[in-house]
Every structure is written in structure tokens, then in C-alpha cells.
């Protein structure tokens, strides 16, 4: 869950920063405004037993938020992402850059600069 020591740069896409299930859930939350738990399991095609614990973790880590709604006789969680995909990317990038600068100091900053020029 975007912990610097858990980042795996050899993984594909969002799974560099999230577990595969977390990545799938965050993707559907970013693509949709609000979703019920049953809609998340349907859209990700992941069973509830795996989704439930992951949703608890995403809420605790403040990537997702939820509210309880009472529709008729049924109680439902309504989930949404706490921030847009771009803002999340920004937060992750900042965290990684901070870590690189903490470790390598001026060398890291010099590299960012030459990297920017080459792009």
C-alpha cells in the first residue's frame, strides 16, 4: 500500500505501488464516481472474501472513503476514491522523490534535472 520499502519497480502499472487486488479496486473507484461493494466485486471480478479486507485497508490508508446508507431494509456501503488518480500519482511521486533526495541528496536532484532535459 504505497510503502516505500514495498514498491516493486519491476511490476506492471499500478501494482508497482499497490497489491494486485488494491490496484484493481482503485482503478474501478477512479473510473466511477460512487460504487456499492457488490458493484466493486462485479466490476473487478474478485470475490467478496478478498475484496472486503482490501477495502478496509484502502479506507484505513485514506485512498478510499465510504459511507453507510440504508436503502429500504438493506444496509450498504457506498465507496468512492478520496482523491483523483492524478492527485494520487502526485502524492506517490512526491513520496518517492523525497525518499531519493533523502538518500542521494544533490546527485538525485542533478539526475532529475538531466532527466527533465532529456525528456
Amino acid at each position, binding site marked *: 500500500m504505497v510503502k516505500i520499502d514495498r514498491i516493486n519497480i519491476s511490476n506492471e502499472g499500478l501494482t508497482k505501488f499497490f497489491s494486485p487486488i488494491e490496484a484493481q479496486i482503485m482503478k474501478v473507484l477512479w473510473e466511477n464516481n460512487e460504487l456499492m461493494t*457488490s458493484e466493486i466485486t462485479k466490476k473487478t471480478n474478485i470475490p*467478496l472474501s478478498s475484496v*472486503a479486507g482490501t477495502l478496509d485497508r484502502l479506507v484505513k490508508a485514506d485512498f478510499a472513503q465510504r459511507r*453507510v446508507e440504508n436503502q429500504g431494509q*438493506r*444496509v*450498504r*456501503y457506498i465507496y468512492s476514491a478520496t482523491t483523483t488518480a492524478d492527485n494520487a500519482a502526485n502524492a506517490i511521486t512526491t513520496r518517492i522523490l523525497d525518499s531519493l533526495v533523502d538518500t542521494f541528496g544533490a546527485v538525485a536532484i542533478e539526475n532529475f534535472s538531466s532527466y527533465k532535459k532529456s525528456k
Partner: protein
Amino acid sequence: MISIADEIICYAECVNNSDLLPLITFLIVVSLFLFTFYLKTKTPIHRVISFAGAQLSMVGAIAATFSTMECSRMLTIEVYLAYVLISTGVMLFLPGLYYKILIRRHNARPISEIVDWADDFVNKLANNSQIYYFDSAIPKAFASGKAIFVSVGMLEIFDQQELKAVLAHEAWHLRHNNKTPILRQLSLMTFTKYRPEQELELMADRFAEEIVGKGPLESARAKLI
């Protein structure tokens, strides 16, 4: 400075001059006999009973010894007596109060805030019980002390009849909760494998089946697999 040798000499002198010597000797022999039996027996219930009996006999012997004391150097016995009193208090009273700790730990809220029928339904099965819900997507329900705790995840996946089956199951635990925690505590203290859980769960299921029928109970169970 605590001297064990001084304590033993003090103990021997005081007890030798006391009329309670035969009673103290008897209680110690009983305690040793029960403790030996506890070490040898394999039957869980015999282990629990013999351990509790050995402890009680030793407490009796200590109390009798205490009353014969004319010197005040029995610190180790005082410490042991304090341990017995505190652990007995914890064993007897903590299970009944533990649900209050759980309410805080889970930040639980009264279920009446989101489900209007649950309190009435459970109170018909177990008087003076309280039902709380807590914030988790993982379907979970459990009972402690006077309270039943249900996660929002469980409220999400079950319909009313299935929830009634779950609540009736937990209400059975509330009705019989006065017996099980003490046995559980004793089994921990005596290092005895005491596993009545499966049996208790089956009895709770049978009770739920009587209240709501087999269908809702089975469909609730199927949703949790």
C-alpha cells in the same frame, strides 16, 4: 532485603506453635495430591477441576498459615495471595465487562441507528442485550458479555431473515455466556486443550434454526463460504 530462608524459619516457628497445624497439613496434602492428579490426568475436565481444587486448597492453607503468623516476613506468600485474588477477580469479572472494551476498540455504534427491528428481535431471545454495528467490510458477528457486534459487511450481504438467523445464533451465546468464559479462562490457566467451541456453535445453530428455520441459516452460511 527478602530472605527466603528467614521466611521459611519464620513459617516453621509460627506454624509449629499453632493449633491449626493439622488443618494446614491436611490442606497442603490435598493440594499436592490434586496437583499430582492434574499433571497425570489427560481428561480436560479432570485437569481443570483438579487444578482449580489444588489452587483453592493452597489458598485455604495460606489463609490458615496467615492467621497463625506472629512475624511479618512472609512477603512471597503475600505476593502469591495477591496474585490469586487478582487473577480470580479478573477471571470472574472481566468476561462480563469485556464487551465495553470491545465497543471502544471497534468504535461500535448502536445498531438502532441503521436497522430498526434488530433490538426488539434479540431482546425477545436474550433479555437486556445490546446490539452494536462496527465499521468493517468483512462479514463478522460475535457476542461478548451483554452485547452482540455485527460488522456493516455482514449487514450488507444478508437479507432480513438471514440476519435474524445470525442474531439468534449470537443471542444463544449471550444466554449461555455466563458459563463459557470462566471455563475458557481456566483452560488457559491449566494449559488444557478445551475446545467446546464447535459444540457450542452447533448448539447456537440449532437454536437459530428453531427461531428462523433451516433455510435462512443455510443461505447465510453459504454466503460466508
